[in-house]
């Protein structure tokens, strides 16, 4: 046992524990319902819970994340049993419902599970101590090596990497789901998701709907974690801080996303849900229990977003280096602040909208039940009040990365810095006023439509400012094209396509044709890839040397780019084409008479090639950690402060604080400096490891 690598040990345990969990689940299920349902939800739910936990046990042992997961499993069962018991005492019939547990039992179980996870993993430990009047050291030393990533760390760089890796894992899961349903779509008629199929109590078409919905939401959560990764990793050292303003809150925000991801996986097996990521009632009020797991998962992940953005704003406001005035902030910091303003406030509304549906299901509160005076369209307003601004949460950090990296590789200042900085805020603020453009067909009040068209189109103006500035930055530069720059260029073109396909949706009458077709699917894969996926890859290739002291393999990086970009165009141009010609969204099968078979097949192949290129990227990433070419200095010849110190970065970023003495992007100006390292720049927290008389923060 000692000689095998932890990963293999983890995988081995995953299989064994999965099988054991499956057996236990089956047994319990059979005991209660009297029938053996091998493809039912209970066995699968137990298998997932056991397998995930055992996997981390195998690679990491019983601490950190493993302990969290064990607590979550136990908490879930205890919570569920508690409610089951209460219902039994109250004499409610149908105690066990359709599954092992009734819906209320699963909901409470899941909630208790999440809270237990947080206690188990240990992120709330210090707060509990403080509330008991006991002091704790301000900073805890991390374990050396890779092991620090599996437990609670307070270092923003570690947390940033934790976020990034979690985001990649979720992209892989959500992408795999996409591959499954894309395979079904490759030809008309039902191929393998047939109506006879029964898996987790779902028929083929239901499985399709569940996978499609989970693809959407898992990808969206992975974006939220991905941007948190970028922001957490980069913002503190870009502004010259030693850490985020609230390191514990930061760790907390990361760790809630882990139980949230587990809930998402549970929703797949607990009957699934067939509403898409938008979860509109009344459909979501009748969907199986998986719906509740989806709601709770999003709700929990939402807290990650809210608390993370709170931290970003506080860090930028309070912990900037000396001399870093508003107009000398790196552009990515501006973008992060704009993003955080949205995430901090609007996220509450998606939480509320989902909570109301949860309560409608649990307590029969008729918020969205038209038969009892409720209003289904109200849900859509609440939902989109978050979910539209959320799309700018997805892209603003990505666009920030583009603006941040472009000057480095063009060797020329960012053209019109002020306007670019302000355009992020502009997009964020105007973005709050446009949500109803998703509801042009919804039957909402007629007079709302035209004003929302105007406000929607207004967003094109600040977005255009960015594009024109990028073009002007490149004009007359001396352009280098290593891998990060390739992804920046890809991002610009792909996002342009996504952006330009936005105004057609905003023109109401035209949207009445486009709405809920693959045209819209094409539109948002373009904006999301251009605004998030490409910049995310660019950021990883760019800052990887900062984190590890080695660079990623250039050759495989270029293969990744040149494989992903064309296949991506095939996929999304295909989407838009068939969408215009009548392909609805969210359908498991399409009319062969429409003649889409060939296009669909090509798109599926494109999808597979994207997946392959991402796989290459993942292998390159992990391989380069140990075997990459050494790169400890200022690899990209950047002016940014983090590149002026050796890589990997010291624990508390800068041993000597810096003072800002010039403009951030003055490439090509002789003898100009952005930052100067001297004790003079002192504006940072002293870290002590000794307990001191310490403030209690609540």
């Amino acid at each position, binding site marked *: 046992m000692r000689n095998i690598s932890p990963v293999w040990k983890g995988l081995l345990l995953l299989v064994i524990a999965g099988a054991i969990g499956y057996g236990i689940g089956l047994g319990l299920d059979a005991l209660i319902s009297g029938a053996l349902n091998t493809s039912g939800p209970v066995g699968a739910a137990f298998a997932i819970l056991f397998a995930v936990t055992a996997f981390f046990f195998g690679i990491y042992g019983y601490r950190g994340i493993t302990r969290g997961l064990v607590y979550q499993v136990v908490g879930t069962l205890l919570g569920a049993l508690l409610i089951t018991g209460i219902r039994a005492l109250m004499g409610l019939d149908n105690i066990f419902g359709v599954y092992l547990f009734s819906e209320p039992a699963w909901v409470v179980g899941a909630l208790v599970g999440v809270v237990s996870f947080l206690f188990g993993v240990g992120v709330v430990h210090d707060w509990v101590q403080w509330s008991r009047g006991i002091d704790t050291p301000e900073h805890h030393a991390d374990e050396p090596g890779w092991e620090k990533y599996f437990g609670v760390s307070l270092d923003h760089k570690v947390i940033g990497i934790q976020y990034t890796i979690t985001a990649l894992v979720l992209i892989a899961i959500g992408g795999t789901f996409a591959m499954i349903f894309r395979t079904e779509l490759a030809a008309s008629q039902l191929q393998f998701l047939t109506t*006879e199929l029964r898996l987790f109590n779902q028929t083929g078409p*239901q499985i399709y*709907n569940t996978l499609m919905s989970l693809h959407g939401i898992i990808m969206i959560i992975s974006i939220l974690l991905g941007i948190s990764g970028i922001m957490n990793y980069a913002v503190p050292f870009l502004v010259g801080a030693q850490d985020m303003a609230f390191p514990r809150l930061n760790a907390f925000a990361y760790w809630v996303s882990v139980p949230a991801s587990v809930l998402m996986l549970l929703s797949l097996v607990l009957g699934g849900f*067939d*509403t898409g990521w938008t979860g*509109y009632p*009344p*459909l979501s009020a009748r*969907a199986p229990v998986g719906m509740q797991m989806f709601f709770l998962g999003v709700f929990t992940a939402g807290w990650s977003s809210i608390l993370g953005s709170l931290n970003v704003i506080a860090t930028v406001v309070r912990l900037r280096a000396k001399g870093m005035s508003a107009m000398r902030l790196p552009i990515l910091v501006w973008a992060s602040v704009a993003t955080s303003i949205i995430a901090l406030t609007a996220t509450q509304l998606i939480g509320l909208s989902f909570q109301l549906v949860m309560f409608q299901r649990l307590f029969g509160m008729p918020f969205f039940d038209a*038969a009892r005076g409720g209003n*289904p369209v109200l849900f859509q307003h609440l939902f989109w009040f978050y979910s539209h601004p959320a799309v700018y949460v997805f892209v603003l950090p990505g666009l920030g990365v583009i603006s941040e990296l472009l000057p480095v590789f063009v*060797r*020329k*200042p960012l*053209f019109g*810095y002020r306007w670019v900085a302000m355009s992020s805020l502009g997009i964020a603020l105007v973005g709050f006023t446009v949500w109803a453009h998703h509801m042009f*067909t*919804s*039957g909402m009040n007629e007079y709302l*439509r*035209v004003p929302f*068209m105007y406000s929607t*189109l207004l967003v094109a*103006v600040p977005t*255009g*400012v960015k594009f024109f500035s990028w*073009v*002007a930055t*490149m004009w*007359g*530069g*001396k*352009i*280098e*094209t290593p891998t990060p720059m390739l992804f920046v*260029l890809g991002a*610009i073109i792909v996002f*342009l396509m996504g952006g*330009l396909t936005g*105004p057609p949706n*905003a*023109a*109401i*009458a*035209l949207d*009445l*044709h486009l*709405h*809920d*077709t693959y045209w819209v699917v094409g539109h948002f894969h373009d904006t999301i890839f251009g605004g998030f996926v490409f910049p995310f890859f660019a950021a990883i290739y760019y800052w990887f040397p900062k984190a590890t002291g080695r660079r990623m393999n250039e050759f495989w990086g270029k293969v990744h780019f040149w494989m992903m970009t064309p296949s991506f165009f095939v996929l999304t141009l295909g989407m838009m084409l068939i969408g215009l*010609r*009548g392909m*609805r*969204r*969210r359908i498991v*099968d399409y*009319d062969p008479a429409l003649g889409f078979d060939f296009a669909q097949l090509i798109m599926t192949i494109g999808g597979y090639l994207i997946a392959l290129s991402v796989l290459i990227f993942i292998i390159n990433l992990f391989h380069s950690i140990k075997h990459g070419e050494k790169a400890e200095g200022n690899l990209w010849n950047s002016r940014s402060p983090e590149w002026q110190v050796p890589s990997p970065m010291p624990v508390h970023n800068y041993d000597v604080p810096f003072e800002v003495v010039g*403009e951030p992007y003055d*490439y090509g*100006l002789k003898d100009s400096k952005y930052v100067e390292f001297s004790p003079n720049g002192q504006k940072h927290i002293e870290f002590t490891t000794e307990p001191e008389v310490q403030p209690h923060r609540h």
Partner: protein
Amino acid sequence: MRRHFIIVGILVIVMSVLIYIGLDSAGLMPVVASAQAVDVDWMWNLEVIAMSFLFALIVAPLTYSLIVFRRRKGDTTDAEHMEGNTRLEIAWTIVPLFIVMAYAYLGAINLAATQRVDPQAMVVRVTGLQWDWTFEYPSVNGVTVVSKELHLPVGQQVLFRMTSNDVIHSFWVPEFRLKQDVVPGRITELRITPTLEGSYKVRCAELCGTSHAFMENPVIISSQEEFDAWFDVALDEAVTASQTPEGRGQALVSANGCAACHSINGAPGIGPTWFGLIGRTEELTDGSTVVVDEAYVHESISAPQAKIVAGFENQLMPTYSFTEEQIADIIAYITTLR
């Protein structure tokens, strides 16, 4: 520099024209089968022009810079320092601002054009249900024609007044362009003037559960004479059917879309088949069994969640509000299925 600007200017123009011609000749939209589609396509064409131009406006100089301003081998110096140009920046804020406002204005006009009202329009009541459409025509002498197929005469405006029995659906005929959600608890309206004879499909465009993909019903646009002929036959059938309980039951079943879930020939479906239902022994989720009689069927219809047949736990049958006579009619109809 001047030379560069001129070349790029030409490139932008050439590229936008080429993209526009390409997109235009690709025939991206389905055939035009309604007056409203003409307006929508006009707007679409405007969009295509704008998209072609703006795409070229960004991509042409970008690609040009990438080639012409690439770093030469051995050059380690930075580019010429150039921070910005306020006048240029104001221009590229103000000009797009005007463009989008003009564009939104055109959008509003365009919307109004698609909503022109013909007071003579024929009113068809549309009901969306999981997972079927029903269409109700204006009644003649108290008898209403209810159809699963949408038959319409060419050239006459129809006003659809739509509602849903269960969840949200969306009425969409791609060849007509406009779509409108069908929402429980409210009536939404859509006006269409068919202009091209032929058969199409109304496709439900809002995810409405398991069989959303299959919620497609035929739409037949024909000349006024053909439409009248169809309507007369349908009316006769409706009159005859309304005379017997089975007939009324069958009409009710058809109007309420039960067939979306229940087959009448023994084929498996979302719900149990009705073939040979009376007298059959059903196993329930609580493990017990029942022999189906009229009382049980009555309960299944009036309180669907009271007893659930094993194997259908994950499907919810909607609750309907039928009168006692109506239920009796439905039972009479179901009894004939054996």
